[in-house]
């Protein structure tokens, strides 16, 4: 069949043809703004970040320390049991060295970003964040890192209250 069909539908356009108006078109930007309710778990999580602490929830059903915190355990489908603080040190589970910003524009100074599993939580449980004070050749999976907090007055209750995760120094482990 694919050999029998001669003409396949679709009229290709180049970027210029659209932007210079060679074909008729309409421009639009929707009005779609939100204020998501953080709810029980995330409100407490953000409040603790503002205090320079990281908090998790425990589930006694599956004996896990759930981080980021959540009010129900997705595994046992039961309410989680208690708040517990976790440490701001952890291990790099994976990372990337990005030469793209969020709109896919090229940047020269790469962004180091990855997933950090946090000490005190169950294994593999962590967050995505930037890495700093390390070059793109030093960063590797398994590296032990610690959060670098912004000063208290600059903290607003956001994951950005942590500036980045930096390598763990001696005696901090």
């Amino acid at each position, binding site marked *: 069949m694919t050999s029998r069909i001669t003409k396949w539908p679709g009229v290709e356009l180049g970027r210029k043809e659209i932007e210079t108006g060679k074909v*008729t078109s309409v421009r639009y930007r929707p009005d*779609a703004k939100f204020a998501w*309710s953080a709810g029980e778990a995330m409100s407490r999580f953000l409040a603790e970040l503002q205090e320079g602490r990281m908090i998790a929830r425990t589930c006694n059903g599956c004996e896990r320390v759930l981080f980021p915190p959540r009010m129900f355990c997705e595994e046992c489908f039961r309410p989680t049991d208690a708040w517990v603080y976790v440490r701001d040190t952890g291990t790099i589970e994976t990372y990337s060295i990005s030469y793209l910003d969020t709109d896919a524009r090229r940047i020269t100074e790469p962004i180091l970003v990855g997933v950090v599993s946090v000490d005190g939580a169950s294994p593999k449980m962590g967050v995505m964040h930037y890495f700093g004070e390390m070059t793109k050749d030093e960063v590797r999976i398994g590296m032990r890192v610690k959060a670098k907090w912004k000063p208290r007055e600059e903290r607003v209750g956001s994951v950005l209250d942590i500036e980045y995760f930096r390598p763990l120094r001696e005696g901090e482990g």
Partner: protein
Amino acid sequence: MTFLERTTDVRRFRHWPGHIEADYIYTSGIAGETFFRELRENGRILGARCPQCGTQWLPPKLFCETCFRETTDWVEAPATGQVEAVSVVHVDAKGKPLDSPEVWALIRFAGFKGGFVHRLLVDPRKARAGLRVHPIVKPRSERVGAITDIVGFGP
């Protein structure tokens, strides 16, 4: 009770602002291209005709909704249409009160399935179904080949 612990101090609940907006450019498509070029160049309104069942569609579509066949022929719409429904609107797109009410209408064209939903440029008190109206089109210099080239419909 949903969770084992729930906050009772409402001030401790936080919100996180954001949006999911982006800029868009919508092409008019194959049928739309012909319609809007004709509207831009000659200020005429064209409908599409289905070769199989003969139905004439306004605004034009590449396909006939009933036979699901490509509409190949073009037909000019009659000069005037008739108002089927009217609504007098007192708020703008965001719900804020308008200084003066806007009249909107559904306008049908004889021999065509469909028509236009557009502004009715008459005094709200005189706006009623059954009015015979014609499209009021911007001058050629201001026309860009978009539905906004038609300012509205008037008697």
